[in-house]
């Protein structure tokens, strides 16, 4: 009965970090939503994969870094982290370049997951 109101909410990270704020404010939104015990997932597509790239050091641009905060998602029970394989490939990146444990999926698998959602928010 309790699960009746649990919604499937997917956050789609589409922007690179630092150049715009979408990725950072997207993460802030995910962290708040995590407290509401909904069925959350986070998908990294396109430039969104850069948000969780290792070795980001923002000291030189004077903007607070936040890549490591993605590592905290696990502690908030946000465990469904997916990355689009094509997006990694065309950027010359592999799973080892990423800061957090993610599941790398094909486009069709991510597309199928999208179609199960009640709410999808792009960041």
């Amino acid at each position, binding site marked *: 009965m309790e699960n009746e109101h649990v919604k499937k909410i997917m956050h789609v990270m589409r922007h690179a970090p630092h150049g715009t704020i979408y990725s950072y404010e997207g993460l802030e939104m995910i962290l708040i939503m995590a407290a509401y015990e909904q069925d959350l997932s986070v998908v990294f597509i396109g430039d969104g994969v850069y948000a969780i790239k290792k070795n980001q050091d923002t000291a030189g641009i004077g903007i607070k870094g936040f890549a490591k905060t993605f590592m905290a998602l696990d502690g908030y029970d946000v465990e469904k982290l997916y990355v689009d394989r094509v997006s990694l490939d065309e950027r010359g990146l592999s799973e080892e370049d990423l800061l957090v444990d993610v599941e790398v999926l094909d*486009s069709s698998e991510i*597309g199928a997951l*999208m179609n199960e*959602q009640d709410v999808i928010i792009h960041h």
Partner: protein
Amino acid sequence: MLHTINKSPFSSDSFDTCIRFLQPGDPVLFIEDGVYAVQSGNRFSSAVGGMLHSNPVYALKPDLDARGVSGLTDGVETIDYDGFVDLVEAHQVNSWL
């Protein structure tokens, strides 16, 4: 799942990206600068044509008119804001910003 695309396919990757995740049968609605995709005879016409084989494709008429986009790729349907609401009533929504 209704997919909306609001950016020009020429200047943003939203169009190319959305296409990859689209499931057969999902309606696609072009709005705002996204509507430039559906003008026939441009660089994206064949991609829109391909999309039409498996998905219903709509474009928001007020946005087409505002941009003087006419001569749409065959099979693209135009709707107004009321039609947009009807699509949202029938489907959950995935807005590819």
